[in-house]
C-alpha cells in the first residue's frame, strides 16, 4: 500500500449567545420552547419585513475573531446565499461572502505527544442559523423555525490539519475558547456548536490535493475523530482498488460508525451570492475594535502559561486547570484561600487536578457543582488540617471526599467523626500487641530480616485505626512492641 498525506479543513458553526436573533428582536433562546413559538415576521421571511443587525452579535463575533488571532475587517458586508430549501423560508440565507468580518487567524493545539501545532484560520463570518427539518415516513417534511435567524458564526480553518486527532484537538480548542469568552454555550447536543470537515488524501510525492469530501453530522469531539478515521480509510480503500474519490457530501452515521453519501454537492456559483440590499455595510472603527479587545478576558493559553510561571505547575496540570474558565477561576480562589493558611499553589493544584477531578468524573458531575459543594475555603481547610497534623494523608483523602459529597466543612467532618490523627503512643501500644498476636507469620518473617513484613504490620495498624494512626508513631510503637515480644519469648 502506498503512503498517503491527509489534508483536513474544519468548518465550525457556533451560535452566538445573544438575547435576540441576528436580524430582529425575536428571542434567540428557543430551547425548551414549542415548535414555531419563537418566530417573528423577519425569521419567517414574511413580505415587507426588514432585517436589522444585532449589535451585540457583531461585538461578540469580533471578540471571537480577536481571541482566534484574526484581523477584524474595518469594512464588511452581508450577502445573500440563494438556495431553495425550506430550512429558511426566504429562499436565501443572509451570510457574508467575499468580505467577511474576520480573516487570517490561528490557534495552537497541544498534542498528546507534547507538541504544539499552529492551525491557521482562513475566516470567521456571521450569518443566520436555519430552521430545523423533520422528515416524515410519507416523504413530507415538518419545519420548526425557532432556530431560524439565531446568530451564527462560521469559523473556517485553512487545510492545515493532517490527522483525525489534530482535528479533534482543534475543535476542542475552539470549544474551549468560545465558552471561555462566553460567546457560546458549547452545547453540542443542542446544536449550539457544530463541526463539518473537508478531507482529502493524496499519495506521498503528489503536489496537487486529492478530491475533497465534505463530512457532516459529527456532533461530538469523539465523533469528529472517529468519522475522519473512517473516511480516510474509505478513501484509501477507493484509491487502492483503482477507483476515484468523488467530490460529495457524506454524513457520519454514529450508530453504524460509517460515513454515508448525501445529496450531490451543489457548485458554489449555484448559490448566486450577491450583496444583501436590505443591510448597509458594516464599518468598524479602530477604537471600536480596540474596545472589543478590552472586553476580552485573559485567554486560556495565556492563563496556562501564567499558571506554569507563577505557581510552578507542570504543563499538564496547568492545562487541566485551564480546561474551562470556571475551573481556572475556582483554582485561583482556592490558591488565595490556601495561602492564608500557608498552603502552596502546587498543593492546591494536586488536590484539584487529582482528587477533585477524579471525584467529578466518578460522579459524572460538571464543574458547575464545585462552587457550592467544594467551595475554595474547604480545599484550604483540608490543607490546614494536614499541615497542623490534625489528620493523616489517608484520612485527608477521606475527609476531602466526604466534604465533596456532602458540601460540609472538612474541620466539622473531622470533629464529628473523630478522625483526628492518633499520635499518642499509649493509645497505640495495645493495638500493636494485638497486631503482633494475630499475624504470627509476618512477625516471624520480620524476625528473619524481611523488611517488607514490618511494612505489612504497619499497614495493619493503619487499617485498624481507619488510617488515623500517625504512620511514624505507629511504626515506632510497633518496633518497640516487637522487641519486647522477642525478649518475652
Amino acid at each position, binding site marked *: 500500500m502506498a503512503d498517503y498525506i491527509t489534508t483536513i479543513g474544519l468548518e465550525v458553526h457556533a451560535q452566538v449567545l445573544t438575547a435576540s436573533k441576528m436580524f430582529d428582536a425575536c428571542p434567540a433562546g428557543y430551547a425548551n420552547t414549542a415548535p*414555531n413559538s419563537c*418566530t*417573528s415576521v423577519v425569521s419567517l421571511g414574511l413580505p415587507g419585513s426588514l432585517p436589522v443587525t444585532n449589535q451585540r452579535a457583531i461585538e461578540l463575533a469580533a471578540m471571537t475573531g480577536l481571541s482566534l488571532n484574526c484581523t477584524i475587517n474595518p469594512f464588511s458586508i452581508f450577502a445573500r446565499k440563494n438556495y431553495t430549501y425550506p430550512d429558511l423560508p426566504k429562499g436565501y440565507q443572509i451570510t457574508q461572502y467575499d468580505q467577511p468580518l474576520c480573516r487570517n487567524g490561528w490557534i495552537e493545539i497541544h498534542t498528546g505527544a507534547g507538541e504544539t501545532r499552529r492551525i491557521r484560520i482562513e475566516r470567521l463570518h456571521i450569518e443566520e442559523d436555519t430552521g430545523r427539518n423533520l422528515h416524515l415516513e410519507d416523504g*413530507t*417534511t415538518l419545519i420548526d423555525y425557532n432556530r431560524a435567524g439565531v446568530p451564527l458564526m462560521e469559523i473556517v480553518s485553512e487545510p492545515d490539519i493532517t490527522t483525525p486527532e489534530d482535528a479533534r484537538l482543534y475543535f476542542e480548542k475552539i470549544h474551549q475558547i468560545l465558552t471561555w469568552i462566553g460567546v457560546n454555550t458549547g452545547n453540542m447536543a443542542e446544536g449550539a456548536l457544530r463541526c463539518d470537515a473537508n478531507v482529502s488524501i493524496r499519495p506521498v510525492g503528489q503536489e496537487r490535493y486529492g478530491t475533497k469530501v465534505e463530512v457532516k453530522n459529527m456532533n461530538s469531539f469523539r465523533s469528529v475523530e472517529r468519522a475522519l478515521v473512517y473516511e480516510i480509510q474509505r478513501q484509501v480503500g477507493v484509491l487502492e482498488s483503482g477507483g476515484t474519490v468523488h467530490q460529495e457530501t457524506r454524513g457520519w452515521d454514529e450508530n453504524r460508525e460509517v460515513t454515508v453519501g448525501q*445529496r450531490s454537492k451543489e457548485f458554489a456559483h449555484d448559490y448566486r451570492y450577491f450583496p444583501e*440590499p436590505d443591510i*448597509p455595510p458594516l464599518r468598524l472603527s479602530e477604537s471600536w475594535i480596540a474596545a472589543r479587545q478590552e472586553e476580552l478576558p485573559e485567554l486560556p493559553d495565556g492563563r496556562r502559561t501564567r499558571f506554569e510561571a507563577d505557581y510552578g505547575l507542570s504543563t499538564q496540570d496547568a492545562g487541566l486547570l485551564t480546561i474551562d474558565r470556571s475551573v481556572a477561576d475556582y483554582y485561583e480562589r482556592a490558591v488565595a484561600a490556601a495561602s492564608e493558611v500557608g498552603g502552596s499553589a502546587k498543593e492546591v493544584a494536586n488536590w484539584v487536578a487529582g482528587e477533585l477531578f477524579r471525584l467529578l468524573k466518578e460522579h459524572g458531575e460538571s464543574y458547575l457543582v464545585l462552587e457550592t459543594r467544594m467551595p475554595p475555603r474547604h480545599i484550604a481547610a483540608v490543607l490546614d488540617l494536614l499541615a497542623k497534623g490534625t489528620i493523616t494523608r489517608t484520612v485527608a483523602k477521606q475527609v476531602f471526599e466526604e466534604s465533596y459529597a456532602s458540601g460540609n466543612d472538612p474541620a466539622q467532618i473531622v470533629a464529628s467523626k473523630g478522625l483526628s490523627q492518633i499520635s499518642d503512643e499509649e493509645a497505640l501500644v495495645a493495638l500493636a500487641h494485638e497486631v503482633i498476636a494475630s499475624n504470627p507469620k509476618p512477625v516471624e518473617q520480620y524476625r528473619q530480616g524481611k523488611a517488607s513484613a514490618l511494612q505489612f504490620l504497619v499497614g495493619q495498624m493503619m487499617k485498624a485505626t481507619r488510617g488515623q494512626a500517625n504512620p511514624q508513631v505507629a511504626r515506632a510503637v510497633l518496633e518497640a512492641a516487637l522487641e519486647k515480644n522477642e525478649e518475652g519469648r
Partner: protein
Amino acid sequence: MTLTPAEVEHVAQLARLKLSPEELEQMRVQLSSILDYIASLQEVSIEGVPPTEQMSNLSTVMRSDEVLPPLPHREALANAPDQRDGMFRVRAIFDDQAE
C-alpha cells in the same frame, strides 16, 4: 449574448420553475435579449470607481440586543398551506433533483 437551452433549463431549475419546450424557447430569446441590453454597461469605464455594495448610502445600522415578544404561535402558522404538530408541512424536499 445567446443563451443555450441548457443554460435556461439550469436557471429554471434553480428557481424551481417547470417550463414547457415552448416556454423554454421563449425565455431563452427574452433572457438573451435582456442580457444583451445589460451588457451595454460593459462599455462604461469604471476605473477608480469603488464597487457599489448597497444603494442606501447608510452604513453600520445596528440595533441593541433587546427582545420583543415573538409572534403568537397561531399567527405564525396562519398562512401555512399545510401544518402538523404545530409545524409547517411541506412536500418531499430530500432529493434536490425531484421537483
